[in-house]
């Protein structure tokens, strides 16, 4: 990036000095402007944290750490706890990733390594289009098309055949953690696929050729050379998907059943942090109630931050172990 700037001004020098001066002034303005934008972003982030902290203060003061561990959410008696929402957020994201990661990686490998040329572009285009569908549309589709299908046959089948597992107990309502997880999978697949495809495509051809020259099969080339080479990028893609899953609101609210429950069953209706805040913020009144909802948002913020930090560390570790930088 830095190397580009002197290049352009050299070209300007070639024509005449006045335009060179103009270009240098332009450079200055440009660099100030970009500096301003990046500082602005950081300032917004800090302002956001401060504002959330101030509004959440009544709840932080009242409940302290028990906010994280309590399962109560009782607006009438003003007792609030976040545990079921935290649980729901992590559980649905986990289900989403468990489904999305294999599918996304599989299709990314296919599209970049195996697919015939005529398929490659249209296929990736369609997958990326999926990411552009507004979440409320996905939510409506989920509620009216997917949920009835999940209720019967999927949940009834799971319940009658695997019902001995705590995961698949309880009445098959259709709405619940399972549906929310599947909706999230659908929403993050295009993100993970798109990133993974780019990352895999960026692996140098020499890596592949060397592997093939050693007599490796295609499978060996992909699993032993291509994927390990770009592992950090793939993890980045997955984390990007996870970030979306953790914060997704609308579609999840429509299919999760919005019960404040802490149940091991995937059939159970539940809530996520984002869905809880979205559901109740409009009509909430009283400093403690609103403060608790905002503290929920802070908790989500912290979870997202934590996930990002872990991801950075993971990427950094794999990169330094393998000694291959990006």
């Amino acid at each position: 990036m830095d190397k580009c700037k002197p290049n352009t001004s050299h070209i300007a020098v070639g024509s005449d000095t006045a335009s060179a001066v103009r270009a240098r002034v332009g450079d200055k303005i440009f660099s100030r402007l970009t500096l301003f934008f990046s500082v602005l972003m950081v300032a917004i982030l800090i302002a956001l944290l401060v504002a959330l902290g101030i509004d959440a203060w009544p709840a932080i003061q009242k409940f302290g750490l028990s906010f994280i561990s309590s399962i109560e959410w009782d607006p009438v008696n003003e007792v609030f706890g976040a545990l079921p929402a935290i649980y729901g957020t992590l559980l649905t994201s986990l289900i989403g990733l468990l489904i999305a990661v294999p599918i996304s990686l599989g299709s990314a490998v296919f599209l970049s390594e195996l697919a015939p040329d005529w398929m490659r572009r249209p296929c990736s285009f369609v997958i990326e289009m999926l990411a552009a569908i507004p979440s409320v549309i996905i939510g409506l589709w989920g509620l009216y098309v997917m949920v009835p299908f999940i209720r019967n046959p999927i949940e009834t089948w799971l319940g009658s055949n695997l019902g001995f597992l705590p995961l698949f107990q309880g009445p098959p309502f259709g709405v619940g953690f399972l549906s929310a997880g599947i909706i999230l999978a659908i929403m993050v697949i295009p993100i993970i696929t798109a990133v993974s495809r780019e990352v895999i495509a960026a692996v140098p051809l020499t890596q592949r050729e060397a592997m093939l020259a050693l007599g490796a099969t295609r499978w060996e080339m992909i699993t032993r050379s291509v994927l390990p080479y770009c592992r950090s990028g793939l993890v980045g893609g997955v984390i990007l998907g996870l970030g979306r899953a953790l914060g997704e609101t609308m579609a999840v609210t429509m299919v999760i059943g919005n019960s404040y429950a802490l149940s091991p069953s995937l059939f159970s209706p539940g809530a996520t942090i984002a869905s809880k805040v979205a559901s109740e913020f409009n009509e909430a009144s009283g400093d403690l109630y609103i403060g608790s909802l905002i503290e929920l948002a802070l908790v989500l913020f912290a979870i997202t931050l934590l996930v990002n930090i872990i991801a950075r560390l993971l990427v950094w570790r794999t990169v330094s172990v393998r000694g291959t930088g990006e």
Partner: protein
Amino acid sequence: MSKWSQNWFAGIAAILIAAVALAGCSSPSGSPAASTATPAKSINLNGAGATFPAPLYTKWFDEYNKLTGVKVNYQPIGSGGGISQITEGTVDFGATDGIMTEAEMTKAESKNGPIMHIPMTSGSVAVIYNLSGIGSGQLKLTGDVLADIYMKKITKWNNPEIASLNPDLKLPDAAIAVVFRSDGSGTTYIFTNYLSKVSQGFKASIGNAKAVKWPGDIGGQGNAGVAGQVQQIPNSIGYVELAYAEQNKLAWAQLKNAAGNFIEPSLEATTKAAEGVSLPDDMKVMLTDSSNPEAYPIAGFTWILVYANQRDKDKGEALAKMLWWAIHDGQHYTSALSYGSLASTAVTKAENAILSMKYEGQTLITR
């Protein structure tokens, strides 16, 4: 690529969250004080609040604008929002489906002076169900039984308590899937107010609010969410606004009112509810469990909130006139939009409230 898009993504997210946070904290919605620059003749009134009466209010303000030229902007941001906006003084009037709490009244009074509740129309909550072979209006329930269902004490349709109310119906030996409103709403407020009145157990364990701690199964987002779940899930029960149930032809239950009659929800039975409840002068009263023999028991007013002491003479006068029109001529528009008109007793009380609105100690309009 991944790093870049990650930052970009986080940036967008931060902006969105910031926007939401700002909107939630204290953003003045609409454009208050927009009228100060224009001559006194053209008056803009700004209001915000409940979503339930929004279709009616939109119709009213449109008609009223044609009649008088007074422009009324109404933002349906929810009752909670309506209360906080009028408390902060960013609107000329608020609107709510629930009564302001003592704490809210005190806070508002300390900021911009006392606030009055003026009833505009009434609505009711229909109990809907999905039972194969049992049509609309066939199922009979009492408040007690309904409360037990929502407390998950009665969990099966063929429970003797339900069966004894419905000797002619073949009720299934199936679990009741209980559907509630997951978002805070005036509908839940009216519904839980009724159940708290008829069941001490409900009052003690769940209570009356716009959002409560439901032990029950599934939460739906809005009327559409609740109705959608009830229509999809066999053997379910739920509650929605009467207007919504009517427009979507949902199967609803008859409820036993305080006089002992089983009543189907209707606009007439909603209006009747106000005639069996003694109305206090401040009109902060719920119409649930009315003693009128023809009343449907789960009904309530929806109110417009105004300052008892207006801050601007012209605006105050325009507001009082508009409200006066709404509780008289405006009532003709209610039934077409599935709202219950105000009972005559309620109109009288509302008149007194409007006449008592003041600007610097002077009354704004006279009869």
